[in-house]
């Protein structure tokens, strides 16, 4: 099992958001998480990636057999957890190239490898730029600065492609993408997908799942996963909305 979450409770500023969540992911799988706004999907992503302020009050997050509750965000990242941000962050004055080289080398240092040679790095950049059809004029800019909404999302997938994570969480990467960009993102994911990694795709739209076909679809509500199924569940949600689920689970 790549990721195993047991009875997870997460609070933000003393307010419990995730309330006893169980969830597991094996290598080679794609899981979609859906659910109404404000039910804790991004909070779950933050808890898995170790964001400060997201306090795990109960339960365990187990990644590759180790409890990672107390690990720093960078350690989790270097062990292979990647988050495509719902709202990517701008870092003025730091070029994408510099940022990615720093990130790749941080990982290599963590794995006790020497820094990546400049030539090899540039080759890798070119290769991955093609994969997500991202333009050099973007990678030459500062991180996310002046990127359009869609460009920012593509840039997340570009980073994912470079870092080759074992577990990638895509938090609404499809929101704000036009249909061509959506295909590019999906194509990126499909090319990276292997038996050695897994994806958690958080989305509101079944449309993305036409391109990234999930093995499982989960519905999150009030801080818990309340329903799981196959791809069919997404279609059902699209048709029926969430009310029938809300009715079932409202306290």
């Amino acid at each position, binding site marked *: 099992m790549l990721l195993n979450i047991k009875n997870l409770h997460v609070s933000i500023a003393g307010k419990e958001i995730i309330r006893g969540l169980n969830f597991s992911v094996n290598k080679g799988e794609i899981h979609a998480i859906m659910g109404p706004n404000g039910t804790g999907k991004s909070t779950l992503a933050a808890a898995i*990636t170790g964001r400060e302020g997201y306090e795990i009050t109960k339960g365990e997050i187990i990644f590759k057999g180790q409890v990672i509750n107390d690990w720093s965000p960078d350690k989790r990242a270097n062990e292979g957890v990647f988050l495509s*941000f719902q709202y990517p*962050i*701008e*870092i003025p*004055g730091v070029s994408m190239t510099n940022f990615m080289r720093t*990130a790749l080398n*941080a990982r290599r240092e963590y794995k006790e490898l020497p820094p990546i040679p400049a030539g090899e790095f540039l080759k890798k950049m070119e290769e991955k730029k093609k994969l997500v059809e991202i333009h050099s004029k973007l990678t030459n800019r500062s991180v996310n600065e002046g990127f359009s909404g869609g460009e920012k999302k593509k840039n997340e997938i570009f980073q994912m492609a470079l870092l080759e994570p074992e577990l990638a969480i895509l938090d609404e990467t499809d929101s704000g993408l036009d249909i061509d960009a959506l295909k590019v993102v999906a194509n990126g994911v499909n090319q990276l997908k292997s038996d050695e990694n897994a994806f958690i795709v958080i989305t509101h739209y079944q449309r993305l799942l036409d391109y990234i076909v999930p093995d499982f679809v989960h519905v999150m509500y009030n801080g818990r996963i309340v329903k799981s199924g196959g791809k069919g569940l997404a279609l059902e949600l699209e048709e029926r909305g969430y009310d029938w689920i809300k009715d079932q689970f409202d306290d």
Partner: protein
Amino acid sequence: MSDEKKNGDFLDEVTSEEYKYGFVTDLESDQSPRGLSEDIIRFISKKKNEPDWLLEFRLKAYRHWLTLEEPDWALIHHPPIDYQDIIYFSAPKPKEKLKSLDEVDPELLDTFNKLGISLEEQKQLAGVAVDAVIDSVSVKTTFQDTLAKHDIIFCSFSEAVQNHPDLVKKYLGTVVPYTDNYFAALNSAVFSDGSFCFIPKGVRCPIELSTYFRINAANTGQFERTLLIAEEGGYVSYLEGCTAPQRDENQLHAAIVEIIVMDDAEVKYSTVQNWYPGNKEGKGGIYNFVTKRGLCKGKNSKISWTQVETGSAITWKYPSCVLLGDHSVGEFYSVAVTNNYQQADTGTKMIHLGKNTRSTIISKGISAGKSNNSYRGLVRVSKNADNARNYSQCDSLLLGDQCGAHTFPYIKTGNETSTVEHEATTSKISEDQLFYCQQRGIDMEKAIGLIVNGYAKQVLNKLPMEFAVEAKKLLEITLEGSVG
């Protein structure tokens, strides 16, 4: 011969006066006694074999200094300085060489490595005896040959006094008169040594005057005096300081830099200041009171100051431009980082006197720990400075919530056709940015370094290439341990 005679008379005068005051200064000694008096100044001047006019200059400065009070307007605090407890002259003596890098403070070596300084250079900087692998003398010679070919004078201030007394006499104190301020008066009375540079008409100095400085960085003194002149159409890029941490047992530093630039000439002056900042508890560290000013005397002349200030317990420094020539340009690009208990009060003055003069100020303050970081600037447009333009941007970045950032921009315009623009921002390093970096595997400390360097990029880009790289690493090192 008359010089010799004068010196002889002078010697008598000095010795008799010393007697009068009840102590005897041993002229053979390499060091003056503690304290400051006219005798001590005579001793210094004599030791340096200076002409009378220079001694007079020093004495006038000293007498003026006695009438002044230490300024208290800067946002800095320190225990009173005992000016009588300082040794104002000691001959540069060769430091005792260490046998190998093994004898050097491991913490210092660690910093050298982080800065990416080569092993050979590390040895030089740490005062380890070097074998013949790197021959600094030959580097210096090639360097001097190149300069000589272009008739550029670049030497120590003391050498200039001996070999080019007319030039020194003509320009010394013309931009920073000894009456300028307390520390300028003190420096003018007791300055030890420094650099002199003269770029003749029409000459573009083909090399950065920095390579040389690295090799000689260890010689910078307590009361440094620098004089730089670029004649019509001349150009020079000059770098002082060193990214490597520098220690000095003298706590008080008071330097003066004067620059004079004629028609169509340009001087780019870059500083990397990394004097010992004191320990984490705020003990020790250099008090750095510096007066730097350039005079754009000619038409279309230009002075550009770039500074990266990371060291010193106290930094008090306002590199300024007097824009006298029509169409002259002044620039000030600054990054000042303070951590732990460091205090920096730094900025610039742009004095617009000529018509169509332009100035740009970009200041990036970064404060961490319990430090205090102030930008203090003055833009003055005189009534004849038609169409003068200034743009100022002063940004402050706070790391943590126990540090302070302050901005004191003063603007005085006496000409209606002038435009003065001022923008200021204060921000905290953002949690979002830090988490974004960490999520990509970059640890907190590296993330801070990355974000801070991005923030300071506009200024770092103005540095000569090879120093920009080191300056970036220097920022990271300075901020180590500032968060978490």
